């Protein structure tokens, strides 16, 4: 445990010692702020229309503002996370520090979990920026807190999946750009995988829907905490980390 913490701490320090953390958090905040403003303005107009008797009959901050906001946040995440994960293994291999890690009395799993925890912490710090926007909504409106909590949980879990895939891909190459690009492509594929659902028949559609990373997020954003989604995300992360462990081990044998 101490080893994992030491490794995670080093990862986080490395993110903040380089421009990565600041750029990632800064631009995430910028984009999220933009979406927040856009959705809020739209919501405002609709509520105005409703008060004049023209809009929808009921207004719900959670459904009409916070839910879509989470979905938008997840889109930004898709672009941002490859930049967080691409360096994890690729950089260690290029600079040779992987020799230090692999000859230290720590297991491969400790290294992987340390790196995973480090990336998750940066990701959580990035999401923490949005608490400012959320607290504004709580200050001036009265949204339910439960869908907000599940929404954040969903985003964290989804990010965990992306990070586990990102670690795997970074462990396969020395080149950060390659790692970043491939990770992004894989993320995007996992994102849109059920778009062809309508054309491939009902069974395949069900399978694709289940594989799609966003489809599971939907319920979280609506405030539904379903075990099947937890199992999906949990097993996705575990599988990604397991493959990373195998990749690191096979690298060792190939030399």
């Amino acid at each position: 445990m101490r080893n994992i913490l030491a490794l995670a701490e080093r990862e986080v320090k490395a993110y903040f010692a380089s421009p990565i953390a600041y750029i990632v958090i800064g631009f995430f905040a910028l984009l999220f702020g933009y979406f927040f403003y856009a959705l809020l303005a739209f919501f405002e107009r609709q509520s105005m229309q409703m008060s004049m008797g023209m809009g929808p009959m009921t207004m719900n901050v959670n459904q009409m503002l916070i839910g879509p906001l989470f979905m938008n946040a997840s889109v930004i995440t898709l672009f941002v996370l490859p930049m967080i994960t691409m360096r994890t293994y690729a950089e260690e291999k290029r600079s040779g520090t992987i020799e230090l890690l692999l000859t230290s009395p720590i297991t491969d799993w400790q290294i992987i979990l340390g790196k995973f925890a480090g990336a998750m912490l940066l990701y959580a710090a990035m999401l923490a920026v949005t608490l400012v926007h959320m607290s504004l909504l709580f200050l001036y409106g009265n949204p339910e807190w439960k869908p907000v909590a599940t929404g954040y949980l969903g985003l964290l879990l989804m990010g965990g999946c992306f990070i586990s895939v990102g670690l795997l891909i970074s462990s396969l190459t020395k080149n950060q750009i390659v790692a970043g690009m491939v990770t992004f492509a894989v993320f995007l594929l996992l994102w849109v995988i059920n778009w062809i659902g309508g054309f491939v028949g009902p069974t395949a559609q069900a399978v694709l829907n289940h594989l799609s990373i966003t489809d599971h997020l939907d319920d979280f954003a609506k405030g539904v905490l379903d075990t099947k989604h937890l199992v999906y995300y949990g097993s996705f992360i575990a599988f990604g980390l397991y493959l990373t462990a195998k990749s690191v081990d096979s690298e060792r044998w190939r030399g």
Partner: protein
Amino acid sequence: MIEVHHLSKRYGPVTAVDDVTFRVEPGEILGFLGPNGAGKSTTMRVITGFMPATAGKVVVAGYDVFEQPLEAKRRTGYLPENPPLYPDMTVRDYLTFVGKIKGVARRDLRTRVDEVMKRTWVADMAGRQCSKLSKGYKQRVGLAQAIIHNPDVLVLDEPTAGLDPKQIIETRQLIRELAGSHTIILSTHILPEVSQTCQRVVIINKGRVVAVDTPENLTARLRGAATVHVQVAGPAPDVEEALRAVPGVTRVTSAARPEAPEFEVDSERGLDVRAELAAVVVGRGWRLLELRPVRMSLEDIFLSLTTEETAGAGEAPAPAAEAAHA
């Protein structure tokens, strides 16, 4: 302390290390000498548990590095060819981090970091980022990193590569100091380095151990027995007899060619018989076509090592001077 048994390592079809066996006694400094690409780094990477062997086994401080890697690694300090520094960390932060993952107890960590920084003369750079260090300081921080957990065994891959002459002398001094309490393997492709620091030398070439001995014995062995290749235009049996009669010659073998016979002449240790051979041949009225010393494979390697050192003289004048002494 370190036992390497029939170690082989293949990368696909390429055999990097082929059936290497040697052992290092506690407290000893063993030099691992060989030209570039001889398999030094690969052997060291197997000893440190960075990669598994294709065949054979390595035991460090009583633990098989493959069966009980954590126990073995806890007792091993390793300085790879390129010091494994994190460019964005300060020297102190870096050594603290390494101390943690190497299992230095939390309460000793601070004093231990200060201690190794003082020992490797990097204390004045404690707050500097690793990426901003000079090559010499990087190497020393690498050394500090290797000894932070006070390991029984130190594996140093070319610890003096890229240092200036003063730093080389200091580093060798440091390594000698460490030897009592640690068992050390250090690799080098510089011949004088082993005679200055090591008690025993393993010479490796193309993945195979060529010789294991003390530096003194090796030098003596090399300066000793010599073979001379002679080609003479003359009657083969007569020439052979005449050559054999030269004092100091122990053996003459002929590769007979009718018009110009060739001979391999072995002589006693430390005796140069070339002048006499030439005198005999010319004195008998035969014509001497060729006379050249033939080197043994071991000497070949030694020579390539010494010439390499001389070739690098432009950037490091001091080791070249040492080569001249050696």
